[in-house]
């Protein structure tokens, strides 16, 4: 056992970080309730997956600036929400240095996904 459990030490005043994360999870959840479900409905109910080839997406969906902005914001919100969620899961089940390492990998992965996703949604030329 290393030192005293945290509950016996004087607790440092909160920096408000946990609150921010908590609120972010809730706000993003509400946004996703609309965005993600709409997205899923569009890709699965309105159109059939089979129709949505790469050409179709670039020509039909991303030909509209509005739709691009929508898709991009959804990307950011989903990544925020789900990576914050995974942070919780990891902090629950992994402890000590493992936790630190896995969290670091998690944030790297998040950054890669932001770059990859933004890259295609934002930089692909309009037709």
């Amino acid at each position, binding site marked *: 056992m290393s030192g005293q459990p945290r509950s016996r030490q004087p607790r440092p005043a909160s920096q408000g970080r946990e609150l921010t994360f908590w609120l972010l999870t809730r706000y993003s959840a509400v946004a996703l309730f609309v965005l*993600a479900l709409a997205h899923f409905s569009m890709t699965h109910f309105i159109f059939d997956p089979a129709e949505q080839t790469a050409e179709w997406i670039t020509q039909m969906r991303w030909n509209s600036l509005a739709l691009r902005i929508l898709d991009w914001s959804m990307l950011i919100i989903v990544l925020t929400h*789900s990576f914050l969620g995974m942070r919780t899961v990891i902090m*629950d089940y992994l402890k000590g240095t493992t936790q630190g390492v896995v969290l670091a990998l998690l944030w790297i992965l998040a950054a890669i*996904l932001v770059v*990859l996703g933004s890259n295609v949604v934002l930089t692909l030329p309009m037709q």
Partner: protein
Amino acid sequence: MARGTTLPAPRRGIRGAIAYRGGEGMLAWAFHRISGIAVWAFVILHVIDIYLVGGNPAAYNELLQIYASPPGRVMETLLGAALFYHALNGMRIVVMDLWPALTAYHRQLWRIVWITFFALGLPGAYIILKPIWELPK
């Protein structure tokens, strides 16, 4: 504390959760976590495949064939189910966060989650799966 003896490790973490006979709330949480992780895993995949739309359209289209195949559709249906459950239960949580008094009705809210889940989810699943037997092979 007993001197010279190590205390046996109490049941904690996932093992504790499996051993404990929780109620609806615990099930709701377990499903929420599992579905959240599942959807997160898919999101990773999805961002990568979307990247291919710009990076390598041919590869994307090949992947799409897998998504549109019968096993792919079953997978998409499960994904939809996870997302839909997670979204509905997520709203159940958010609603209680906003109005703590609603915690007294968490079981009722949980029932509403499942009623909605099946009422909208079954037709949805039908739409996604229909092509399996309708499209020409």
